[in-house]
């Protein structure tokens, strides 16, 4: 089962590699991993998307908690949460395709952030499946390049991850 795990960790050199190293050394799956400092610059917030049985995910959260620099760990998928991912996608846009791509971007509430006479670059935010749906909706051969951030997650309502 897919789990989205959020953690707060000391914003120190090497902290990221401890988390990444833990996943590889214990053979845990890792679908995506995002990390950046929080409003408190001494802390980083990381979101890890992983898959595994309940037993494995229990071990993952325990092992993450064991890392000395990890301050808090929460499995967001245990409750209501929101997740978002951003994708930048560059599409070949010539002739009739220009209108079609513009329409697709509007439908998916994407924004065209760069334009040339041959291409559009679109910024698109949403759940991973929404981004997948957009990719399925456009002409594959028109895709020049994509870059995705991986998921970031946050609890709904009063669910707060804070030190």
């Amino acid at each position, binding site marked *: 089962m897919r789990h989205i795990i959020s953690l707060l960790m000391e914003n120190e050199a090497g902290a990221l590699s401890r988390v990444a190293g833990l996943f590889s050394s214990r053979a845990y799956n890792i679908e995506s991993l995002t990390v950046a400092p929080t409003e408190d610059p001494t802390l980083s917030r990381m979101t890890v998307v992983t898959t595994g049985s309940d037993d494995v995910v*229990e071990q993952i959260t325990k092992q993450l908690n064991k890392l000395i620099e990890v*301050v808090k760990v929460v499995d967001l998928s245990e409750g209501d949460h929101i997740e978002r991912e951003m994708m930048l996608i560059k599409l070949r846009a010539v002739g009739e395709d220009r209108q079609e791509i513009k329409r697709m971007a509007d439908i998916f509430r994407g924004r065209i952030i760069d334009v040339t006479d041959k291409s559009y670059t679109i910024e698109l935010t949403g759940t991973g499946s929404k981004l997948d749906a957009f990719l399925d909706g456009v002409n594959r051969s028109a895709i020049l390049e994509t870059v995705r951030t991986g998921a970031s997650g946050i609890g709904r309502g009063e669910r707060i991850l804070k030190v």
Partner: protein
Amino acid sequence: METELTGAEITVRCLQKEGVDYIFGYPGGAVLFIYDELFKQDKVRHVLVRHEQAAVHAADGYARSSNKVGVALVTSGPGVTNAVTGIATAYMDSIPLVVISGQVPTHAIGLDAFQEVDTVGITRPCVKHNFLVKEIGELAATIKKAFYIASTGRPGPVLVDIPKDVSQQTTVFRYPESVAMRSYNPVTKGHSGQIKKAVQLILGAKRPMIYAGGGVILSDAAPQLTELVQMLGFPCTNTLMGLGGYPATDPRFVGMLGMHGTYEANMAMQHCDVLVAIGARFDDRVIGNPKHFFNEERRIIHIDIDPSSISKRVKVDVPIVGSVSDVLVELIKQLKSRKETVDQAALDAWWAQIESWRSRDCLKYDREAPVIKPQMVIEKLYKVTGGNAFITSDVGQHQMWAAQFYKFDKPRRWINSGGLGTMGFGLPAAMGVQFANPGSPVACVTGEASIQMCIQELSTCKQYNLPIKIINLNNRYMGMVRQWQEFFHGNRYAESYMDALPDFVRLAESYGHVGMKIQQPGDVEDALREAFGLKDKLVFMDFVTDQTENVFPMVPGGKGLSEMILV
């Protein structure tokens, strides 16, 4: 203006503040400033080993036998890579160490400098934590944290990597009185509600079993474990790491369990209805086949300081996270406050069953054999030392025989590499044990293969006059490899024969020690008496033992506890 100290001086002052009396190490370019400061003082005594692996094993043996943090000092590059085996050994057995390594100067890091390796990267998976000190201002606080992290919670090795320029720069020295880390707050006390549930299960048990591991030793909880077992009258087994946690000569002790555990311990483990696991982690050498283990129904209470050890391989019913000693104190208190007692009739019947398993005499061997049986050497070693020696071991058959036949009544007397299984551990560990316990008898049980992995330390032993007794069970084979090849690989003894062995007696003598070769069963006891009589000498005892002896019982890898191969 306050006087400023160099990073090297600060490092040594920190060690003094931590009460470190011995540090095991090997000098090199990146740690020269630190060595210079060690030279200028006499509080922290440095022990010069002959290979960095031995420095860490020695610090490890020191820590295991004393419950103090062991300290090692190595240089950058090959100094560190040599130390990795020692660090991983300590990590697997949760031994508190602080390893200080030199690093190339900060401006050279990442430039493939001479003797540069990514120490923090290489050691990351086998330390509890590690630090690269980039600023002199962080040095003292980092060392303080290292000792704190190493010795609290589930203990483990912590490495502090100090670039050469940091050891040369100066700052005002302030050693923090205490450490507070928002990201590291190990629990000690167990949840009293969980302990209450455990009490309930214990009192309702018909076929109880207590399974205690290395956590009992690390937590100094042998007195509490002993009190608990004797108060309840339950059978108790120890893991390889837990030997000495409960007195082996007490009848409630059913021997070690696991792959080479006793028949009675493994059968009782398999057939109990309430299992109390204390500071043990159901590893693959204890429960080779978790599925088979669950063929029998039982309730499991698991006390461990590390939440990730709970329900990792074996699902448990009542987890109690906390330090073994604290939890046992509370458990005993709650048990004493209860009016109900254990079901004595059921317990008597259970003991009758266990005694019938015990009568199988699973550790029997041919005592009349014309060749020296390795088991007999350990039995005589036990007899001659009165059970009071510190015994270190290497890894293999000799380790299992030592664990089976030397009856450890006290904790911290049995020093072995249980988790990583590091050949070469025994002799350097014995050095550390001897430094921590001067005047006490220390024996290293080893084999002709293992001893050669760190044999250079005979030189260190000479330099510091360490009167260790080396019990070399020489069967001219990597015995455990040979045993597996006999059982599982059609008697094809691929590369397990130890050819071209040195004359160990002359080898020992060339280092200035005493060497003895013992070939007749009738000579074993007298030879041991003679060796232990030489109180100020290292004696290398080369016992020529039966080449084909195997360790029994044996639970083959992946098999269930009751699927033992018996002699």
